[in-house]
């Protein structure tokens, strides 16, 4: 027998809760017949069972549903009511970005312009310095020396017109440029690397010789009239040579002084700066910024593409 005094309470509770099987119920009834005290306990437990009251929910009408409540709209009509959330895609070229890009581009252009300005100044400086240091051609050495020497020294004879080349090599004010009268005088606006210094020194020497001989023929009259203002290397060199030649104005000391002048000239020519060769060919549109080479055509193409993108974006917004 499963039911005993230790577990009788559990059986009694399950009994009043209708949780006992038929077999257990019969066994419990047999047990209770044998133990009447537990029958009283069972009667007391039965009193704890609540009787089901008649409680009516009065608002049932509020809970009822009717078939017409199930009426649904046709899907085609629903589709007309649907609203899709449109995603606002912010374009790449917003106003702030356009302003920032424009400012960067303006700064870039200013920088390029500044670099151009600097390089042009360098070129003009180089030109004038080159002009002052320019060795003359051999074919008309004598006449070149005659015409160039006064121009270098700063003043010309009245026959050649008035010309002034400042010592700073920046300004030339001339009414009649003597240089134009020299057929073989070629203005070199490139910086040349004098690779063959010996050749140039020879040319210089020949110029000086011719100049010296011309001085001798002129008997020093023109030299005394010139106002020598040595500020650059070449005038200084010539001035120095002239100064050396001037006291020895006779024919006996000409050869010695010429040799000395040649020697001095050679030494000074060796100390001359090397000049870079700048190609100013119009077809070359390369821009040199620092060590970077930027192709002008490519920049133009790039700017054209940017303009096309701007226009396209503007058209899209207008649409």
């Amino acid at each position, binding site marked *: 027998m499963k039911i005993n005094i230790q577990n009788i*309470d*559990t059986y009694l*509770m*399950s009994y*009043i*809760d*209708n*949780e006992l099987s038929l077999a257990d119920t019969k066994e419990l009834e047999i047990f209770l017949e044998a133990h009447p005290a537990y029958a009283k306990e069972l009667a*007391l*437990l039965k*009193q*704890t*069972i*609540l*009787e*089901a*009251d*008649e*409680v*009516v*929910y009065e*608002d*049932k009408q*509020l*809970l*009822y*549903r*009717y*078939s017409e*409540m*199930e009426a649904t709209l046709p899907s085609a009509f629903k589709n007309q009511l649907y609203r899709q959330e449109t995603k606002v895609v912010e374009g790449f070229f917003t106003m702030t970005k356009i302003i920032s890009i424009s400012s960067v581009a303006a700064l870039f252009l200013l920088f390029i312009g500044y670099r151009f300005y600097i390089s042009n100044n360098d070129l003009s400086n180089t030109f004038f310095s080159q002009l002052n240091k320019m060795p003359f051609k051999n074919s008309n050495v004598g006449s070149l020396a005659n015409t160039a020497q006064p121009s270098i020294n700063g003043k010309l004879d009245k026959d050649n017109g008035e010309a002034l080349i400042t010592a700073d090599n920046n300004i030339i004010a001339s009414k009649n440029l003597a240089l134009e009268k020299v057929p073989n005088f070629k203005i070199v606006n490139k910086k040349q690397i004098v690779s063959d210094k010996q050749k140039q020194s020879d040319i210089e020497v020949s110029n000086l010789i011719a100049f010296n001989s011309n001085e001798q023929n002129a008997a020093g009259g023109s030299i005394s009239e010139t106002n020598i203002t040595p500020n650059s290397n070449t005038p200084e060199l010539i001035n120095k040579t002239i100064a050396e030649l001037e006291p020895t104005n006779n024919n006996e000391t000409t050869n010695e002084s010429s040799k000395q002048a040649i020697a001095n000239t050679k030494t000074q020519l060796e100390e001359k700066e090397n000049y870079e060769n700048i190609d100013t060919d119009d077809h070359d549109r390369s821009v040199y910024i620092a060590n970077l080479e930027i192709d002008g055509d490519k920049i133009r193409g790039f700017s054209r593409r940017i303009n096309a993108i701007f226009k396209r974006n503007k058209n899209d917004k207008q649409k």
Partner: protein
Amino acid sequence: MTVQDYNNCVDQYSDGVYRFIVKNIGHEADAQDIVQTAFEKLWVNREKVESFKAKSYLFTIAYHLMIDQIRKDKKESITNNFEEIKGQAHPNTNSELKQILLRAINELNPTQKSLVLLKDYEGYSYQEIGEIMNLSESQVKVYLHRARQILKGKLIHLEKMSA
């Protein structure tokens, strides 16, 4: 579940759900709100709930709504309200034993009270009560037996006092 099935559920279970709730919280208006909410949820989920599970579904929803309501109105005294409801809802059940028993039930905790009400009023099995109240079958059995012992003790005590 069709509309007809749903309306049948209203006819069959609305009174029982309302009784279960109003006996627990003792407040008619709140009980009505809970019943309405429970049936509203049944209507919304009628496609998912099968007809034979509708009663259990309704009691489960109502029980959880009631727990939320009890937590909301924790300070409210249930005992007084229960006595008021007793007079209104059961004007003809005024026996002395029943009054003693109702007073004893009001001293049970909400879980024990729900267990007793679900067992005695609705006749649910331990398993069904466990499903409604999220308890295991053995927990239901133990808690219910403990509630019965308390009620028995109260009855004995009150009978002695009245005697």
